[in-house]
């Protein structure tokens, strides 16, 4: 009876874990007993685990990780610093919206990674070009979400603060920003995914180091377990970052807990 209670309580993580573990197990078993493994074309979890141990935990990839993180952090910080003010401004001032909207719509709709070769031609191989690419991909979710947040601000609340003597500054800090914050956090989750794409594409196109470069090098040299180890590491990073944002959102916006569906 105890086990049943525990199962009902934690049904979600339990089923999730079971499905993931099942997939890996099936993968391992098929390639061990059913299909002979050709290591040039494919690999299996036990080999990936060894490579992960060696490359990621053992430190061989650390240098590449640091190189990639640096570009990610630069690009991402600039995306925050530019995206939020631009979005808030567009939301609050109609003229700013009308002026900027055509560019944003065009850029957001187009696959910006197509610009990667051009960006590398202009900015050279290295940190700057990669940061620019991350910035370009990550800035839009910040702009659009900040914009949407400001637009959804309740007029009544603006009026309430005005009626108690609030000035323009109070409207920003007591109404507009708090009401926009959850939108920005949601935008951050999207921006993380897009920013990681920026890094990897940048390093695929032209680089001599970095995690994306490592992946393509492992691929070129048929080191498939190492390649998967790096890919899984990226996946884990993305999951940790986006889930971290979810937790942060709950901490920053306790009034939304229980209101918002997942």
């Amino acid at each position: 009876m105890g086990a049943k209670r525990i199962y009902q309580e934690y049904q979600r993580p339990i089923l999730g874990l079971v499905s993931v573990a099942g997939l890996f197990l099936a993968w391992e078993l098929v390639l061990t007993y059913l299909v002979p493994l050709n290591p040039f074309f494919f690999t299996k979890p036990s080999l990936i685990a060894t490579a992960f141990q060696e490359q990621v935990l053992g430190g061989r990839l650390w240098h590449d990780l640091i190189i990639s993180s640096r570009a990610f952090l630069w690009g991402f910080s600039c995306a925050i610093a530019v995206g939020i003010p631009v979005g808030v401004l567009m939301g609050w001032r109609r003229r700013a919206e009308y002026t900027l909207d055509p560019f944003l719509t065009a850029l957001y709709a187009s696959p910006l990674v197509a610009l990667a070769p051009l960006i590398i031609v202009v900015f050279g191989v290295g940190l700057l070009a990669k940061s620019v690419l991350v910035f370009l991909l990550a800035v839009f979710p910040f702009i659009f979400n900040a914009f949407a947040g400001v637009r959804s601000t309740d007029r009544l609340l603006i009026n309430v603060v005005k009626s108690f003597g609030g000035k323009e500054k109070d409207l920003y800090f007591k109404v507009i920003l708090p009401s926009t914050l959850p939108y920005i956090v949601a935008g951050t989750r999207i921006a993380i995914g897009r920013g990681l794409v920026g890094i990897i594409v940048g390093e695929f196109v032209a680089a001599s180091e970095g995690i994306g470069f490592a992946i393509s090098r492992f691929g070129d040299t048929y080191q498939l377990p190492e390649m998967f180890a790096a890919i899984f590491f990226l996946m884990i990073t993305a999951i940790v970052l986006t889930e971290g944002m979810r937790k942060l959102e709950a901490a920053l916006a306790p009034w939304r807990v229980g209101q918002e569906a997942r």
Partner: protein
Amino acid sequence: MVPYIQAKNLNLTFRPKNRDPVTALLGLDLEASQGEFLSLVGPSGCGKSTFLNVLLGLLKPDSGDIRLNGNRITGPGQERAMVFQEFGLLPWRTVQANVELGLELKGVAAATRRQRSAELITLVGLNGFEQHYPHELSGGMKQRVGLARALATDPDVLLMDEPFAALDAQTRDLMQMELLQIWDRAKKTVLFVTHSIEEAAYLSDRVVIMTARPARTKSTIKINLPRPRDYEMRLSAEFNDIKARIWETLKEELMTRSAGDGS
């Protein structure tokens, strides 16, 4: 002598984009003296909230003149506060922080704010809910937070837009009594919008009956019942007589409305 509150020939038309304009106020005249308790009743959608918002300084009339103590109203001011019909609580603030909003904007020190909000939270019966967020409260509780917030800054003029509409009958009776005490003690001027004829008759010095939209004052009924008023008074023949008179006048307007555009 100039009346304390004086609205003369107020006109206001809303012009929403892509929709027909709506004239909410058409030549509205209204006066109130200092310390008076004045109720406004009228068909819903006639322009009562609009009028309170003009008086609060959030809406500008297209034409006409509105004065408080002889000075034209051009914007919000510390001497006026509103209990909003749709509550208007900031969802990211706890009950306590919501009650303190006006004090904060006035620059009152944190310790004083805390003390004042504690008093008011007790007054409206929300002890134990200080740290709750609005989404955790019932409609009636939110309304009481709105009332506490308006009282916190101790305004001379209290504008109340159907402030007790979301309360259950007992809480409503209780809050009415509290309000009369506050009004009597602090000598505030109250403009009180309500749907309840009984409530208007029980609380007010005068009841202003407004026409169907666009709003004008149709007639004013003076309530000559002695004060302090108690609950038993509501059972008297005199009280029922007053209610009947208000109803007679209001009924014609309600008929106009249902015969009209039905909004």
